């Protein structure tokens, strides 16, 4: 009687792998300043805890918002029964204004084009359901968020074809890489339905340049396909060049009355910019009526509780609060980012120059015993088990070069980050000392055996537990 569906039964792969063991190691032994100071520090979780004090004080000052009250009057009955998949109008209006604010009010959004979902995870999957049939493909620039392998593909049966980006140009998207990916999809007999980018990029922490965005729009215009711009980190851009939303590009060019407008869709969420992943609030913004219509109906499978919608509508309508929050939060992200960069630099570890995100894209190629993904895993294991830092290896993000790692910095206190930096510094020192002992081991002919691990294995190295992004 093991009559489960293919989808349900295919998901336990890789559980006996060393990656999984490493992951369990972290779960067993999590760092705690007081209770477990020797434990493993979680640096694989892109969570923003930097501005909790601001949220806390707002909630303390506005008890009505969480208490089902409007101007002191109970609106509990209204909220208890509210389950309209069009969402609470007040919340949608507040959310589109917040989105515009984060984009410097250079663009505006119409709340009729907005669909609410249970987090960006669900928003991305819903768009896949809407835009592609099983067996059709989306192109994604690498390295990309490992969760996409499951979120975009699992239930929808859509395929992902990588757009290969490399460190040689700072992992920027090029025309030739786009064409190559398109060609590769055709070679595999896959119909390409669109391109999905994260802007700012997870895991790179860089926002897309205007040049790249123009490139993408003309590419999808030429091929007659869709573009999904996942902009959930838009509020974390802390340095110039500033954030350019795909919406801005659509305004500037001659796209205003072009059908291309209807083929560009934005994914947004409050998990990163407002640091509220526990609230499970995501959104799809699209100019295509049909996409909006069907995504709205599909949102039945992941509605946001009315209590949460009401609470957030009150919070986001408080313009004074949002304005202060956005600028203060940016400042803090910038500070933290600088702290990690500085610490790593002192340890002789460079990072990709970045201007956004809650993480750094760290270059540890010089610490690998060989230029292979096997060596990357070896190093990763050392960092988890010996150094006590849970970070994400580039291979889990489908990076084509071994030796890159994503390190998150916003889900912990300053002291903890300092400790993490200390740990990595002493680790590097210990390597450089022992390095003189066996230099010839570096070029042992280990072939790149990355392929021998199932994709599930790689995903597990990210914060597999849940909805981490």
């Amino acid at each position, binding site marked *: 009687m093991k*009559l*489960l*569906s293919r*989808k*349900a039964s295919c*998901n*336990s792969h890789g559980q006996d792998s060393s990656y999984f063991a490493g992951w369990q190691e972290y779960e067993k032994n999590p760092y705690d300043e007081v209770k477990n100071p020797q434990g493993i520090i979680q640096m694989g979780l892109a*969570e923003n805890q930097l501005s*909790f004090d601001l*949220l806390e004080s707002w*909630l*303390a000052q506005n*008890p009505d918002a*969480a*208490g*089902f009250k409007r101007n002191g009057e109970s609106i*509990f*009955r209204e*909220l*208890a*029964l*509210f389950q309209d998949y069009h969402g609470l109008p007040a919340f949608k209006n507040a959310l589109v204004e917040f989105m515009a604010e984060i984009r410097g009010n250079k663009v505006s959004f119409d709340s009729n084009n907005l669909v609410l979902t*249970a*987090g960006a995870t*669900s928003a991305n999957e819903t768009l896949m*359901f*809407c*835009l592609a*049939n*099983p067996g*059709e493909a989306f192109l994604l620039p690498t390295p990309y968020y490992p969760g996409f392998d*499951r979120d975009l593909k699992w*239930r929808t049966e859509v395929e992902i074809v990588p757009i290969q980006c490399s460190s040689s140009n700072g992992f920027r998207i090029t025309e030739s890489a786009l064409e190559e990916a398109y060609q590769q999809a055709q070679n595999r007999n896959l119909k390409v339905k669109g391109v999905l980018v994260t802007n700012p990029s997870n895991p790179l922490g860089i926002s897309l340049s205007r040049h790249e965005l123009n490139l993408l729009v003309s590419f999808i215009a030429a091929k*007659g396909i869709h573009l999904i711009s996942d902009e959930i980190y838009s509020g974390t851009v802390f340095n110039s060049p500033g954030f350019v939303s795909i919406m801005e590009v659509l305004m500037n060019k001659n796209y205003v009355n072009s*059908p291309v407008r*209807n083929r560009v869709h934005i994914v947004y969420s409050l998990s990163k910019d407002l*640091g*509220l*992943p*526990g*609230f*499970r609030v995501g959104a799809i913004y699209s100019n*295509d009526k*049909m*996409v909006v*219509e069907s*995504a709205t*109906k*599909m949102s*039945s*499978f992941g*509605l*946001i*509780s*009315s*209590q949460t919608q009401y609470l957030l509508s009150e919070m986001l309508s408080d313009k004074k609060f949002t304005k202060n929050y956005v600028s203060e939060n940016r400042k803090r992200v910038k500070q933290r980012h600088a702290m990690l960069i500085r610490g790593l630099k002192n340890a002789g570890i460079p990072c990709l120059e970045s201007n956004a995100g809650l993480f750094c894209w760290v270059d540890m190629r010089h610490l690998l015993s060989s230029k292979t993904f096997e060596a990357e895993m070896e190093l990763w294991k050392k960092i988890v088990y010996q150094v006590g830092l849970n970070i994400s290896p580039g291979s889990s993000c489908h990076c084509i070069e071994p030796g890159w790692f994503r390190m998150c910095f916003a889900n912990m206190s300053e002291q903890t980050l300092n400790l993490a930096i200390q740990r990595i510094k002493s680790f590097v020192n210990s390597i450089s000392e022992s390095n003189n002992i066996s230099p010839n081991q570096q070029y042992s002919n280990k072939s790149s055996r990355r392929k021998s691990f199932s994709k599930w294995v790689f995903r597990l190295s990210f914060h597999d*537990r*849940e*909805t*981490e992004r």
Partner: protein
Amino acid sequence: MAQCQTESHLAAPAKQNNLKLHEHTNKITTAYFPTTKNPPPPHTSGNPISAFDSPTTHMTRNPDSEPEARKPTRTGMRLIVPLQGIVQGRGGLLLGSLIPCALVYFFQVYLKRHRSSNPQSPSTSAENLPELHRSSSRANLLTRGSIGRVHVSARASSIAKPNDSPYYIGLDRVREDPYDEMNNPNGIIQLGLSENRLSLDLIEEWLSRNLSGSMLAEGGDDLNIRGIATYQPSDGLMELKVAMAGFMTEVMGRTVSFNPSSVVLTSGATSALEILSFCLADQGNAFLVPTPYYPGFDRDMRWRTGVELIPVHCRSCDDFTLSIKALDQAFNQARKRGQKVRGVLISNPSNPVGNLLSRVMLYDLLDFARERNIHIISDEIFAGSTHGNEEFVSMAEILNSEDSDRDRVHIIYGLSKDFSLPGFRVGVIYSFNENVLAASRKLTRFASVSTPTQRLVVSMLSDTQFTQEYMKTNRERIKTMHDLFVEGLRELGIESAKSSACLYCFVDMSRFISPYNEKGELELWDKLLNIAKINVTPGSACHCIEPGWFRCCYTTLNEKEIPLVIERIRKVVETCKLSG
């Protein structure tokens, strides 16, 4: 009481097949005529939906439609190719293609007329409710190739179609013109929405007692900002699972004890059902579902999964109780068609009838599932909304005494009905199958419950004194309303199906419909909506095989409104009697 129809339920699938073949023939002809392969996207042209009307109406509910869809193509080709040969001798290519095209066209026109003049029998009611059954199999959509516009997926275009089922039309009408004692006394009274407003005051009172000040000031380590803002397990907080398992144990009469680690929390029962559908069946597989059933099953189980539902008809002469024989026949017919049946989906207490499955029936059902080696999904979302003397027996209780087949049973629960909190979106999958639990937990990443809401519900459900009092009072109030409503109808000479749970009456108005088929039923529904100004759910929306039954939800009303509703029904019923 409507008499039992002589026509056997066996005829229903056969009829569907017939109908389907027509549709395919239709489809082939339409596919021949447009010569453009991919017409440019109608972005600027008026209504983009119109482009999809024809493909969506051709969708069928049968998963083996893929091979069938091809069959007519081949016969079509067989017809055309020899004709071309004959004609080419004289008229050349032009006539050779015109004549067969014309033939096919006239054939299509003939079919259309034939179909529209054909009075619709109740058993085809399923096919006439456009929105609810549109999911169709994906394979079928794919074989069609062009769907008008290249950009959007076939799944999306079928779902985007406007809802023209009476179920949704009624709900929309109420939204436009809702009854209000003071402000809109002539508005439409809502009896079509499955909502319980009888006991909201109890929860409101609890909130005012317990939710003082800021939600963060409640004390306890978890109720700081970290406890609500950060990532939490997507399948729910352990605290809520514990509280939920306790609540379920309470609701099911403490005859079984639910294990918190077998609880998976989802954003509403809607996503719980979809997740189970994804876990238990592949695209094209089917579940057997006793009718009449909850209209939402078609959406939840089928839309995105490509899974099919096979109705197994229950009749008024049996008080709409399930028969294993009927299940068995439906199973065998599906197997003959080459369709894999993965399980039985029951709702107990049953929506829309409100009756309960007996202990004996549950044992039989389990035996059936064991013999056929299939799953059972038991939707027990109304378990706490019983009001009669009859005992509710959970599927879980049956298993307690019989451990061998636990892993084929999966239970759906939620707080939307028994606890009147649909806005909170708290649904439950309770399964005895470790693999299903593991897969479901992963799938909850697409449908988690918001953490602040979970925290609130934890404290609410943990107050067991409150929940016990609530359940008791709520049951009493449902009973009062049920008795008043049924008695009011009885005075009009209208009977309801025997029921001892849920928020509805399933009302027999078959005497007042003419003709005795779905058309007659919808005419009466229309009168009730537009003349009597009450919105009820016609049985056809629930796939009921007998016409003339209506689901009336009375828990959205207050006691004072019942005489008003009865009076409004009387007016329409009297005109029906006169004209009949």
